[in-house]
């Protein structure tokens, strides 16, 4: 019964802490925190703000994937598609349809909603690996489409640059990076709130139950299809939202966004952070981005190039370090980073063990 009481009190504490954290993050652009090796410069510099903003977007995207993979247990290999719809959709509506920013956002959002609903409705007719593959198929179709560059809309392998005509000035240029930083922080907070909201709602509990045992859900009188679809669509549109922020931050979209590798990256992030943990997805996204971006700097640093071949060759490949690190986490830190945190603080969010959502695929 201890959990009965902590059920009420714990959230208050948690939300309080989260509020303080957000407030702190909000004033970061005013501060001069410098962590050499981690940040490219003090926190008020655009380079560091950019890195932070980018990592928050990836964290938001990971959160949206967490909803589908961690909560609903749906192994989607096509989540990148909705992110790409956000980035490309906004890019295309701004550049080729000449819409103002707000209407363009609405149009793109609706497009993401529509595609997620359509793809979800179809692919949720199957489960397990089949589901993974059908979602992959749709994402691949999207990828082929982007690369084929129909009507010169997407720019193919040259990418699509943001048309700044209708974008307000406070989002344009490196000097405005702090505004973009706040935008990304806002997106992260929004996605986190929506995700928590959904997870805590009754529908969220039903989704979790469906992940555990679908037949049982039917037998107690619930049709799992709609809740799963709902989760899939919410995850999808959140990704679309993040994709739009991404375009504003990066000012261009490239075909990497639609690649299967990118979805795989999301999987890596969610696992790194801890499957089933909301905070895990956030931390995973941030850690991954920092590693990914900063390891490049490390790998080409003098410290590495001076090493003997047997060390230099692997260490000069950022992906090698990242992949190895990932293997080590999987081998030695079940539950990912958040899992370690949960074990240390003994405050379990749902289960001590990482979700075994892939089990159903066997």
């Amino acid at each position, binding site marked *: 019964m201890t959990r009965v009481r902590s059920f009420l009190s714990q959230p208050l504490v948690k939300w309080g802490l989260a509020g303080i954290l957000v407030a702190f993050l909000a004033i970061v652009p005013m501060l001069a925190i410098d962590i050499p090796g981690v940040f490219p410069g003090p926190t008020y510099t655009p380079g560091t703000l950019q890195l932070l903003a980018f990592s928050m977007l990836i964290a938001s995207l990971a959160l949206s994937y967490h909803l589908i993979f961690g909560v609903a247990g749906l192994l989607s290999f096509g989540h990148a598609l909705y992110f790409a719809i956000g980035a490309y959709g906004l890019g295309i509506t701004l550049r080729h349809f000449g819409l103002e920013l707000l209407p363009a956002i609405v149009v793109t959002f609706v497009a993401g909603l529509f595609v997620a609903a359509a793809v979800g409705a179809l692919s949720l007719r199957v489960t397990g690996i089949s589901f993974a593959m059908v979602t992959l198929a749709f994402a691949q179709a999207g990828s082929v489409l982007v690369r084929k560059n129909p009507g010169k809309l997407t720019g193919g392998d040259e990418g699509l640059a943001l048309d700044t005509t209708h974008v307000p000035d406070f989002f344009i240029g490196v000097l405005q990076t702090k505004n973009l930083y706040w935008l990304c922080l806002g997106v992260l907070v929004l996605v986190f709130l929506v995700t928590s909201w959904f997870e805590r709602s009754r529908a969220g509990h039903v989704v979790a139950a469906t992940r555990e045992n679908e037949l049982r859900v039917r037998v107690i009188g619930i049709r799992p299809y709609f809740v799963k679809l709902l989760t899939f669509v919410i995850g999808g549109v959140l990704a679309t939202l993040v994709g739009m922020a991404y375009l504003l931050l990066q000012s261009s979209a490239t075909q990497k966004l639609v690649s*299967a590798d990118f979805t795989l990256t999301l999987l890596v992030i969610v696992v790194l952070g801890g499957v089933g943990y909301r905070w895990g997805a956030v931390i995973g996204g941030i850690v991954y981005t920092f590693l990914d971006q900063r390891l490049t700097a490390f790998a080409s640093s003098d410290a590495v190039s001076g090493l003997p071949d047997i060390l230099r060759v692997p260490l000069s490949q950022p992906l090698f370090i990242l992949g190895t690190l990932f293997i080590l986490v999987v081998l030695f830190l079940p539950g990912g980073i958040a899992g370690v945190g949960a074990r240390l603080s003994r405050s379990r969010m749902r289960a001590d063990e990482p979700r075994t959502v*892939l089990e159903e695929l066997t």
Partner: protein
Amino acid sequence: MSTVILLLITGLGLGALYFLVASGLSLIYGLMGVLNFAHGSFLTLGAFAGWELARRTGADNWLSFVASVLLGAVVGAVFAALTELLLIRRLYERHIEQVLVTVGLALSSVALFDGIWGTDPVYVSGPSWMGGTTDVFGASIPNNRFVLILAAVLVLLGIVLFLKYTRFGLIIRAGVENRSMVTALGIDVRRAFTVVFAIGGAAAGIGGVLAASYYGYVSSSIGGSLLIFAFIVTVIGGLGSLSGAAIAAALVAVLQQFANFYLGGTGDFVVVLLLAVVLLVRPSGLLGSKA
């Protein structure tokens, strides 16, 4: 007419390549119940090993070609066995982590190959007959396509016979479902797992050397690019079903050729469409057992 024949036979050649990758993938899926994302790396390493050997022994004689295929098989097998021993085995019955560890291995091994052999493709050549063509009803078919098809058939037969005439087939199927019960029947399931992994790796290694001869180059990414089609083939054929994979490999590749040629380069589109349709109509794939 000759175009149709050309498309058909070259399609089968490509299908053979898909199958060589998919066979090991399917076998390992049958074994550990998860898709092995590192399978492409087994193939790539096999290809590099084959190339290194051919380069040293003079690439254009048959002896060194056969030797490099064998070396590719051995290297693929060893890499796969080590993967099982060092990584997969530690994650006893934790399927999700097993998949993820292969994802990590795929990432890091490709980067390591980049570091060792560089990012530029290295171009390979084989015995000159392989680069020649044979006329079949007016179509000039590149000879190495026949070698590919032959190799795929041999590998298929080899694995089928192995599964049929040893207890491994049973152990694998049972082990996927309930590994600890298999050990409780007095069977050393770990050894069986390593053996099967090695066989899958060997098939991939052979595929690697032949893929190098098919593409004319080796690079760190050839495994990865074949892997996605191998996944598709494995799934369309029905997970864990070797003959399903063989049929699907041929189907996918031939369809891809025809669509690329006649339908304005929509090969990939059509394959992806096929995948979606097959799965929506028959979620367990062509020959997959119903879950």
